């Protein structure tokens, strides 16, 4: 049966476990909420942590769906409302890409 990936499922099953790993790396607590900022003001992620986090998300997506998804494409980069603002917008973006 094909798994249906909703934003909630992506957030809980994919992003939260990887945020746990980032917490260890940056030695800071990160709120596992959809409003938690990923980039910009108030983000607990340093710039390298964002990059390694997104690569880890892509790898996990490949492992779970068998699809080689790249989250950063020209459309995402040129979008006025960046899909990488918060964990929640990232989850929505992932669902769109799947």
């Amino acid at each position: 049966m094909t798994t249906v990936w909703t934003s909630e499922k992506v957030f809980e099953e994919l992003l939260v476990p990887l945020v746990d790993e980032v917490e260890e790396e940056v030695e800071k607590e990160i709120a596992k909420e959809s409003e938690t900022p990923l980039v910009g003001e108030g983000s607990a992620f340093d710039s390298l942590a964002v990059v390694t986090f997104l690569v880890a998300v892509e790898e996990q997506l490949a492992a779970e769906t068998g699809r080689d998804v790249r989250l950063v494409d020209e459309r995402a980069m040129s979008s006025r409302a960046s899909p990488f603002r918060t964990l929640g917008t990232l989850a929505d973006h992932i669902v769109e890409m799947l």
Partner: protein
Amino acid sequence: MESQPVTVITGARKGIGRFLANHYVEQGHTVIGCSRGDIDWSLENYEHVQLDVAEEDSVRELFRRIRSLGRLDHLINNAGIALLNHSMLTPGNSVSRILDTNVLGGFLFCREAARLMQRRRFGRIVNFTSAAVPLKLEGEAAYAASKAAVVSLTEVLARELGSLGITVNAIAPGLVSTDLIRGLSEEKLEQVLARHAIPRLATLEEVAGVIDFLIAPESGIVTGQAIYLGGP
């Protein structure tokens, strides 16, 4: 038991790339080589993939296969093409072809390699630049520009990837007797050699010696450097 190191070499069909494939297989590495054309030779622990280094989908497919090996230690970005022509007589698509292979291809391999290497917080990337950059060789405007871009790429990637345990360096192999310099006349070759501190062709062993140093585990603090053989 730890698996053997995995080394990717681009442009491995002939010349320096083929020599390095043999050299690192002999040192116990698993070597994955690639080139546009097929090979008429084989080696144990060597796998060859036919692709164009500037085709993003093919490069990603190659690295998906490498991922299944569980590790990637070294990338030797040797693939490159040269063009000897006065700028006023150089077609735009020749320039595009050079930039695609030497710059875009090099970039794609660095990017995909770094994504795998960062998982183990270890990696060594060696790019290929050229004496044409410091010598500002007439007749090689597009080629020299592409190889200058390789140096910039190397320097910036060294900074981006340093904290992930990945070093990025470049080597300019000097004049080595390969197809790449076949287009040079005897006179031009002599002129170019005369502008080097050591005015002779480099040997393949000398090129490998520098790469051995750059990829050694003990060279973890050597990054962002370009080493020019022969002292141009």
